[in-house]
């Protein structure tokens, strides 16, 4: 046996010995921990979710525990509720980690089910959480994501608000929804205690020019208060939502304890002392829709098409292609569903189909016949053409 063979044999013996030794070092029998429950065999409350899912699966060493938790998201018992409920995700800031009442819009559920738009399904490098357990978490969120560990002597607090405070909306919300950490006295939610007001255009609420907004309806269920805005026109402005915990009319829980409402940007609200108003604001700026016929008339047809000698003129005058684009009504009548004279197989505007609308082909210069329009003044900006396309895609409505 040569030196190399002896070395190999020595390595084989070493590897085998160590393998056998390590094989005897098995995992723990779990006797130092409470017995486990089958997936989903626990209640839809936070303390049981923490004990059966978050602590054993997420708040493990090196993961969502302690100072080095990824994305700063700690899910150990002391921190998890405050880091989940009503808190925007770090990966997708427009989504709350837990949106009380709406599991489908809760990033926690999206990450557990693998449907989140960013990043990997959680838990990382491990099998997914059983769907039965996720369903329990869904139920807890649907029920309002209440923290059942809060002692009953603590004052009632706001756990989330929709729209999210300090967001800039581009469409008016249908409702203002506040969630609470315990059951409300629903009779205390009314137009005196739940208030929405516009700043008066200056973005500030100190000038006494604020305008109160009258709700379509104000309602409350166990842990939710809703300020309905159906049919209520909201102008572009900054809005303030107020829930009163001090004064003559206040929000209270079932023990007649006043709302602990002070809000400094993070949920839940409050300073752990009953009493105090909740105030949060959001802004609304609805973009102007330039893809309407009236807008196109003003931005395209009137300045670029309907000048003297072109597509406008007194009744009876000879219009190019017989097409009057002098005003919106005339443009609609001349364009939508009307066959092109140059290309009779195409309509000038075919609703919902910009590609097969002769108007688009003419302004983009792709038409089979004639010259690109407008004849003078240069081609239209692509942004204007995009507006035309959008108007047609939207149905080419008058």
């Amino acid at each position, binding site marked *: 046996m040569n030196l190399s063979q002896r070395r190999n044999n020595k*390595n084989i013996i070493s590897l085998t010995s160590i393998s056998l030794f390590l094989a005897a070092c098995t995992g723990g029998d779990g006797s130092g921990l409470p017995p486990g429950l089958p997936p989903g065999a626990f209640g839809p409350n936070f303390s049981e979710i923490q004990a059966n899912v978050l602590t054993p699966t997420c708040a493990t060493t090196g993961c969502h*525990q302690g100072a080095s938790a990824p994305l700063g998201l700690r899910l150990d018992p002391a921190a998890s509720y405050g880091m989940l409920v009503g808190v925007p995700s770090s990966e997708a800031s427009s989504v709350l980690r837990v949106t009380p009442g709406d599991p489908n819009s809760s990033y926690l559920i999206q990450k557990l089910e693998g449907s989140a738009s960013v990043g990997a399904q959680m838990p990382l490098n491990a099998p997914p959480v059983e769907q039965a357990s996720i369903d329990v978490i869904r139920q807890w969120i649907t029920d309002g994501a209440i923290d059942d560990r809060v002692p009953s002597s603590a004052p009632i607090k706001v756990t989330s608000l929709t729209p999210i405070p300090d967001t800039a909306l581009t469409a008016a919300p249908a409702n203002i929804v506040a969630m609470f950490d315990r059951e409300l006295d629903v009779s205390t939610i009314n137009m005196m205690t739940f208030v929405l007001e516009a700043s008066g255009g200056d973005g500030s609420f100190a000038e006494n020019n604020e305008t109160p907004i009258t709700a379509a309806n104000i309602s409350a269920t166990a842990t939710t208060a809703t300020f309905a805005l159906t049919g209520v026109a909201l102008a572009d402005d900054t809005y303030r939502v107020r829930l009163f915990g001090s004064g003559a009319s206040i929000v209270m829980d079932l023990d007649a304890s006043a709302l602990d409402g002070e809000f400094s940007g993070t949920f839940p609200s409050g300073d752990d002392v009953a009493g105090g108003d909740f105030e949060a604001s959001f802004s609304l700026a609805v973009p102007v829709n330039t893809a309407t016929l009236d807008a196109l008339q003003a931005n395209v047809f009137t300045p670029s098409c309907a000048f003297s000698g072109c597509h406008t003129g007194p009744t009876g005058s000879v219009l190019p292609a017989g097409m009057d684009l002098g005003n919106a009504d005339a443009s609609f009548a001349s364009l939508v569903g009307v066959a092109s004279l140059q290309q009779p197989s195409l309509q000038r505007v075919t609703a919902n189909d910009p590609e097969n609308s002769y108007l688009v082909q003419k302004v983009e210069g792709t038409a089979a016949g004639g010259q690109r329009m407008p004849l003078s003044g240069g081609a239209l900006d692509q942004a204007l053409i995009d507006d035309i396309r959008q108007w047609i895609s939207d149905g080419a409505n008058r």
Partner: protein
Amino acid sequence: MNTNNHKLVGLILTLLALLASGHGAYAEPYLAVQKGMQCSSCHSHPGGGGKRTVYGNVYAQSELAARHVGDSDLWTGEVTKWLSIGGNLRASFVDVDTPNRSGTSDSGFDRGTFYLEVGLIPNRLSVYVDEQFSPDGLENREAYLRLNSKNTKWFVTAGEFYLPFGLRLQDDSAFVRQASGINFANTDRGLQGGYNAGPWSTIASITDGSGSGQDSSDNQFNLTSSYVQPGWHAGASINVNNDDAGDREMFGVFGGYKTGPVAWLAEFDVISDDIAPGVTVDAYAGLLEANWTIRGENNLKFSYDYLDPNTDISEDHQVRYSLVWEHSPLQFFQARIGYRLYDGIPQVDAQNRKVIFAEVHFFF
């Protein structure tokens, strides 16, 4: 050019690269042990990982691969004097058998990354970017500026980077990497400085401690030092991450030893986490790994992982056994198949799963 000539070219380039860099090279810690070199010999980052150096590329083509096909010229990663690039693409099939659950199988791209290093002043000042392009589109992993001293022994780095702690394993699911939280899933932002020459490598970092996300009022301090000799190396790491809500402290020792064709790796970490006021959890994580290299292109890896997540709780520890065969039939390509057996507490089914996996890895 015949095979002998290929080897000759590879050897010459390897020697030239070694002379140029002053020290050596490789892609996984066991390779560094086998060759008696620092991680930075093969990788641009002083702590290892990421883009390969000229020597790393040459080694991968001339020694790691069973054969070199195609043109005899070797890829060095250097596009111009000022620009070098690299990349990785990993795809895998994974079958997981978890007690009391239906088995699951999954396949697809795990990760595609692209590396770019611009030597603004060659060997002195460079910009480095590590970008993940798959899955989920572009995502920045590392981006930093590095300044080397004139003799290249000292360096300072500023930007976003991976911290070095313990063995720089590719497998993020190894308990030592998972429990330390310092792995290829987490970068941090800050400053790094170090000394990297001869047998010594020492890297000190001060970072946000943000875990890639939340702002923290305090900082994270990290120090790793290792000493390399032919046939063995040893090192230690310390990490302190202060946070308003509680601190984390870690200490680890690691090393490697070569016995013939087998390279042994070991690491043991002690981790202390403040999880609530007055509540501290201490954890132990360990790794023992044997890599049996059969010729250059085959490696049989056996590893044993140990994790005690809370030393105050009895019988809550987990272990993991892995048997992995790695094969590099030709340059830029490595295949890997393996089996992992997890053994943990009976209350958590996922801690008792069995995993079979196959992975292909393209790199340059």
